[in-house]
């Protein structure tokens, strides 16, 4: 399985000049010349790509954006909101303190928490249920969490199920080590720190 990056980096894109006056000039009204121009554009793509197919340029980033999905996967940007996961600390235990903010915040009522106490004054979620059949991937839970305990990951597979019950994830299925969601965490810190909540 290979991971590919496609598309043109934003830095390379140049703004295009757009012609605002849209009534056709006489030259365009003649039509045939404009048809030929259109044909030249498409043929140019055709021949350039044809050469690319016959002699694939080695080591160069490919121009064709199509991703062969099961064999190739996109490298997703940290802004991608996949399914929410719980972050585990160094001991492999959840960071969540069962404050219940995400449960309250969730617009889809996807989260339900049963809180308990480990020691007096130290709360933890005894059960943390996330119904991905309800989740709308809005990211509010991540935004509201005071402990960075729940973040949106880059996982998107396994969400096509025949039974809805299989989309109900428990705490143990949701726990991910912190290293797995590092990119998203730093992105979240950067973005959310811009606004004065």
């Amino acid at each position, binding site marked *: 399985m290979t991971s590919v990056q496609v598309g043109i980096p934003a830095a390379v894109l140049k703004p295009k000049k757009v012609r605002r006056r849209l009534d056709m000039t006489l030259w365009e009204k003649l039509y045939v010349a404009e048809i030929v121009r*259109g044909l030249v*554009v498409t043929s140019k793509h*055709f021949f350039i790509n044809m050469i690319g197919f016959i002699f694939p340029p080695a080591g160069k980033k490919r121009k064709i954006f199509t991703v062969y999905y099961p064999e190739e996967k996109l490298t997703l940007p940290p802004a991608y909101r996949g399914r929410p996961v719980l972050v585990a600390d160094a001991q492999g235990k959840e960071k969540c303190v069962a404050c219940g903010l995400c449960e309250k915040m969730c617009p889809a009522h996807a989260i339900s928490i049963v809180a308990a106490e480990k020691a007096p004054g130290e709360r933890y979620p005894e059960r943390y249920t996330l119904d991905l059949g309800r989740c709308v991937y809005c990211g509010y839970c991540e935004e509201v969490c005071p402990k960075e305990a729940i973040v949106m990951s880059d996982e998107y597979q396994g969400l096509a199920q025949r039974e809805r019950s299989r989309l109900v994830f428990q705490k143990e299925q949701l726990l991910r080590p912190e290293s797995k969601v590092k990119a998203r965490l730093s992105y979240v810190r950067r973005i959310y720190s811009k606004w004065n909540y």
Partner: protein
Amino acid sequence: MAADLIESVAKILFIFAVNVGVFAPILGWVERKQSAVMQDRIGANRADILGFTAIGLFHSLADAIKLLTKEDFVPANANKFFHTLAPFISLVPAIAAFAIVPFGGRYELFGHEVHLVIADLDVGILYVFALAGLATYGTVLAGWSSRSNWSLLGGLRASAQMLSYEVAMGLSIIGLIMVYGTLKLTEIGAIQEDFFRWGIFLQPLGFIIFMTCAIAENKRIPFDIPEAESELVAGYFTEYSGMKFVMFWMAEFLEMVTISAVVTTLFFGAWHIPFVTDAMLLSWFQFAGPNGAAALAMLVNIAVFFTKVSFFIWLQMTIRWTLPRFRYDQVMRMCWKMLLPLSLINLSITGLVVLLL
């Protein structure tokens, strides 16, 4: 005569095999793949036999199996007889029109004169027009007999469009016929042995008009208002499935081949390489003996002819994947207000020049 019979059967089999066996499936693949390459995509490449995909060629095979095993559905209120007849009326002219197209010259092989054309009609080009007119019936009947609003609208549009464009198409050719002084396609081909007498040099305007009308006759984008999938589902063949659907589909591709063949014959020197006459070909292949030379020259003729045909198929595909569809009124206006006057002007200028020279 036995030799004549063998020759005819061989030629018919050859043309049939090339059309139905090679062009029809390959064009299905070309249409997918060329559009993909033009649009910076990859295109169909998943069908494989033992992991071998042959750049998507097996998709035609998969298509064939799929369509053959599909249910042949006829709508409840449809006229069953005409509903079944329509695809045949569409497909048969598309194949039959190829009969008068010469794909090579006249050679002596084993003391028998072989002429690389199935039927050398005196009125060759009229026969093409007659069959093109016949194909209209297939479309209209398909639209009418399906008892579906989409189909009927498609059929009506097709009849209006095809009748209109036939007029301009016929007139665009007359200039060329005046210059060549013959309706026989073999003679027109033979005249174009001289590179400077290729139709494109004598009648450039006629070529553009003819090409436009031919694409319109074939109902392909940008003139595909009879099927207009964004307005009429699939137009006149909405109610067809399985093999009958394939027949319309094949008719479209084979008409494309026929158009390319006719354009090649009329405007692009038929089976000739520029500046190379058939006699020169024969003298080059002298080493193979008289029969071998004739056979080799024939092969070169056929190869050159089909290369040109392939080029025009490529051109039509490129046009199909480049231009957007015309609106219905635009199609009609283009025909009656632009192409028809243009072809009349072309005709009068040609007449004047022929008269003066």
